[in-house]
């Protein structure tokens, strides 16, 4: 077994339920590499919702709370608020995080709570059998868009940025080194960090949208269609070519939510000591 797997996976839960060729194994490896390099495994508190990506968390031999569809972020807030020293990481998918759980993403980003959201984007609802997702490219034929999707996709990175996230990156499973580096930066970041991972789903996206169920075809598709950009201002140019811009789009420092809460608590208690509270 891979030494990272040997060290960090819950062996009594194996084998993975992922389909052959799924990107989730690569994401697991990149994440564990980042965690191992930082030496923070024991501090992890993982949350996840529903969908293929949610199971990434469960196989890690850490404290894991896998809740309902779309609700991984509120669960993470409960864990962070009860012990801010936890490294809280949420694994979510494009349906889980951008559709049913989209509101929670907005508000966690707005609060700039210190946590990392890893959004695995396979451009489809895979576990339920290949229905259109908010991330699916317009025109795609899926089980629920048999005549082609007429909806425009939603860009999770732009949403997170607009809502107030303070670190935003997008990489793909075809860029494992950059992905591991982005995970490390996100885990070290003080505030709300959002990492989107474009990932291959040969079984649903590959077969029904891209035209092949071959894992290597799907990984090659990511290589061909993802373009790293140094400057986020160039995202539009890449998109105009029908491609997906990758990169570390944002890294800024803003007041962190739990630190602000602790400051508020301290000040409220002091004011009360002086007879300031009602």
């Amino acid at each position, binding site marked *: 077994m891979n030494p990272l797997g040997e060290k960090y996976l*819950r062996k*009594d*839960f194996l084998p993975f339920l992922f389909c052959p060729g799924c990107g989730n194994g690569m994401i697991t490896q990149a994440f564990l590499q980042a965690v191992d390099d930082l030496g923070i495994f*024991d*501090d992890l*508190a993982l*949350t996840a919702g*529903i969908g293929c990506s949610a199971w990434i968390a*469960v196989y890690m*031999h*850490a*404290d*894991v*709370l*896998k*809740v*309902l569809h779309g*609700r991984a*972020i*509120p*669960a*993470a*807030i*409960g*864990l962070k*608020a*009860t*012990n801010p*020293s*936890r490294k809280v990481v949420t694994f979510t998918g494009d349906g889980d995080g951008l559709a049913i759980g989209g*509101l*929670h993403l*907005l*508000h966690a980003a707005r609060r700039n709570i210190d946590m990392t959201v890893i959004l695995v984007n396979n451009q489809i609802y895979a576990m339920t059998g290949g229905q259109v997702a908010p991330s699916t490219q317009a025109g795609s034929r899926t089980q629920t868009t048999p005549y082609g999707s007429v909806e425009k996709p939603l860009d999770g990175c732009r949403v997170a940025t607009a809502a107030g996230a303070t670190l935003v990156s997008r990489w793909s499973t075809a860029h494992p080194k950059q992905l591991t580096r982005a995970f490390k930066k996100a885990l070290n970041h003080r505030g709300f960090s959002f990492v989107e991972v474009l990932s291959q789903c040969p079984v649903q996206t590959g077969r029904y949208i891209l035209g092949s169920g071959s894992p290597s075809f799907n990984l090659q598709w990511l290589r061909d269609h993802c373009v790293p950009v140094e400057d986020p201002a160039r995202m539009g140019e890449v998109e105009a070519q029908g491609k997906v811009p990758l990169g570390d789009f944002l890294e800024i420092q803003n007041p962190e939510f739990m630190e602000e*809460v602790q400051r*508020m*608590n301290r000040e*409220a*208690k002091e004011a*009360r000591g002086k007879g300031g*509270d*009602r």
Partner: protein
Amino acid sequence: MKKGRIKVMQGNEACVEAALLAGCRFFAGYPITPASEILEGMARRLPLVDGFCLQAEDEIAALVSVVGASWGGAKAMTATSGPGFCLMMEAVGLAASVEAPCVIVNVQRGGPASGQSTSTAQGDLYQARYGSNGDYSLITLCPSTAQEMFDHTIRAFNLAERFRIPVIILSDEVVAHIREKVFIPEPDGLEIAERKKPAVPMEKFVPFQAGEDDVPPMPAFNTGYKIPVISQAKSLNGNRGNAREAEAFIRRICRKVDARIAEFADVRTYGDEKAQTAFVSFGSVSRAARSAVDMGRERGLPLRSVEVKTIWPFPDDLLEKKLEGAKRIVVAEMNLGMLRNEVQRVLRDPEIEIELFSKIGGLYPLPQEFLRFLEEKR
């Protein structure tokens, strides 16, 4: 006499006071009438005790974050009213499935949908028990006074910790906003329960294996147990269960509560315990029923008011006992007969007459209406 102090307060304020004394240190809620005073009170009080109060983006986030906080090791609560309670339903099942102790207050108002936001009602009785999908069990308490709101809130936390379940306090607008005397005991005069922690190290710990009490020990996150907690039907080690394991899990999370109902069931009688005519009620309606009993006594009419305090799981045996000898039973409630259905299910004697005195639309039933009901229907 216990040591303590007496304060005039609203039911909603009594709830805040009691939650803090019970050890609640995490609260999440979304503003809604007539429950908002609980969120407001928590927002003001929790920072002073190093707690945390979150105004969530919706009631789904509120209850899910409470579940997260519970696994984080804290005692946690949320409060809402009907429309918010609807949103919480998915997470009620979640709390039951991941066995996260927590307290959910539903201050009932008129329904369905937006209903009547400032009026009282009791239409969420079934929702409290059956609102989420699948089989699960939980305990629901029904206070009728500000004092009971205080006492039931302490009890709700204790029962949640004892059984590792969500406990629902089914209050209503009358209990929420009435101002009356509440006795607040000194903290050392209160019995406070804490969840059972594992007695073995991680290597020997089986996450969802319970002893004879059917309640597995619960470690907090990041205390070395590295526990997998999933919302699926589980095997003992926490993974997705096969059919046999799923069945065992579902049966256990129901049995741990239902088989121990004698431990916590509470039904009280006010008035003449042998009276042939009995009112049965829960929540704020019990107040009017008590007054009706007093008025009946003045007129030489023997009456008893039987008041259900723990309404779920329904206290079949205790209610039957409390209604022994009653020939005419009037179930009084602010819905179209939910409690009546339960009473009918329990009392199958065809000789006993079970009538429904229903008041809906937001007007609270008056004591004289109880007596008029007895006269007019006769």
